[in-house]
């Protein structure tokens, strides 16, 4: 292994990263059906026996894929997601009263995450305004004669994301549709850990192509890649 120069002290190890993931925290995760979720950090959460987590992300993956591994072991007390359909264990835990689930429409959820990352308080949307479950407990407001739901911003104690490449400043590029929610989740964490396939020298990423500026990333750790079997395999 070539020793990376580490001028911003952001390059670290899985072991160090896991010190930031503790019982009871609110953890936001990148990924969509497991694609683009950080496999090393997820396994570390299970190995470290984390409990009482509040998890925020697009979905609960599959029982053996992505954040689904954590959810199906009962490590979360609450999930905020747009669907849990691909993870029957999550549905079972919910029906048994062991897991609280807050559903948010997918497009609204990602805007709420982005709003948190961008330092905004909320967004106004008409999506789901007629829907009891979506509108429940939320403020409404009329603007220019139209009714809107006030959808509050979401932030997290720690965000965990997965990227293709990082430089020592934490600038990130993603791979194809594995980008999905990662750039949004990256901004919304008070502490953001990026698990990456490759760490490249400072200056080797084209500044035009950087998707997540390193200012939003607090720690970069190398990944061993996905270790689960996809449903289509």
């Amino acid at each position, binding site marked *: 292994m070539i020793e990376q120069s580490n001028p911003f002290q952001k390059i670290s190890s899985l072991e160090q990263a896991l010190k930031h993931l503790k019982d009871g925290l609110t953890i936001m995760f990148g990924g*969509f*059906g*497991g*694609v*683009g979720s950080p496999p090393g950090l997820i396994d570390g959460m299970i190995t470290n026996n984390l409990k009482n987590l509040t998890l925020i992300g*697009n*979905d609960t993956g*599959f029982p053996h894929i992505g954040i689904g591994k954590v959810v199906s072991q009962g490590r979360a007390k609450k999930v905020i*997601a*747009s*669907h*849990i*359909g*691909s993870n029957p264990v999550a*549905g079972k835990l*919910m*029906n048994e009263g062991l897991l609280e*689930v807050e*559903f948010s*429409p*997918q*497009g*609204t959820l*990602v*805007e709420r995450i*982005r709003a948190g990352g961008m330092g905004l308080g909320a967004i106004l*949307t*008409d*999506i*789901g305004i*007629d*829907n*009891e*479950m*979506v509108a429940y407990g939320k403020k409404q407001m009329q603007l220019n004669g139209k009714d809107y739901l006030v959808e509050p911003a979401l932030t997290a104690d720690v965000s965990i994301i997965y990227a293709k490449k990082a430089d020592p400043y934490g600038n990130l590029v*993603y*791979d*194809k*549709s*594995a*980008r*999905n*929610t*990662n*750039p*949004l989740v990256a901004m919304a964490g008070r502490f953001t850990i990026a698990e990456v396939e490759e760490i490249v020298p400072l200056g080797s990423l084209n500044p035009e192509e950087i*998707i997540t500026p390193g200012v939003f990333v607090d720690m970069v750790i190398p990944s061993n890649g*996905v270790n689960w079997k*996809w*449903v*289509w*395999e």
Partner: protein
Amino acid sequence: MILDERNKMARRAAEEIADGMVVNLGIGIPSLVPNHLPSSMNVMFQAENGILGMGASPLSGKEDENLCNAGGYPVTIVPGASYFDSTTAFGMIRRGRVDVSILGSLQVSRQGDLANWIIPGKKIPGMGGAMELASKAKKLVVLMKHTDKAGKSKIVKECTLPLTSKGCVDLIITDLAVFQVVNKELFLIEHYSSTTVELIREKTDCNFLIGNNLKTIAY
């Protein structure tokens, strides 16, 4: 070529797509629609996770785990495709830049209400991106079997299941017929040659009008 029921429905849905359109397809029968489009047609298929310009499924063994549609299945891309984050994907949808959305459903009411996300007490999978697609696509096409497994009509006077979105459905394509919703009124506009208006009335749990120019589908 003799088409099975699912492909007949998909073929009929493909007729709603014109050159240059942006199209979002749900999982299940809608995913068969691209097979019924002429290859010369310029259509951009969109996925909610963050792809515009999906192509055919990859050959077995050629899948890329980081290039999947919103259902989690591997896809390919066409020239002119782009990747973006999920906020941009839903920005396109909410802004009305998606021309046609083709979804499956559990129930549709005669007023065009859509109920496709939840069966209370049974299955609570969550709405995913269905609400945005249902309420904001320029045209919403529902592809579904006319009746459920118990033989009950899925086209109903009022949805009994929780709504995904009100009055959003423009076209319903079932294995028996095609209905158009115009100003909250249901019109039968086409049916397959294998059935009759009488049979459709029998199997449909609400009244409907007959379109001015009722057609029999040739395939």
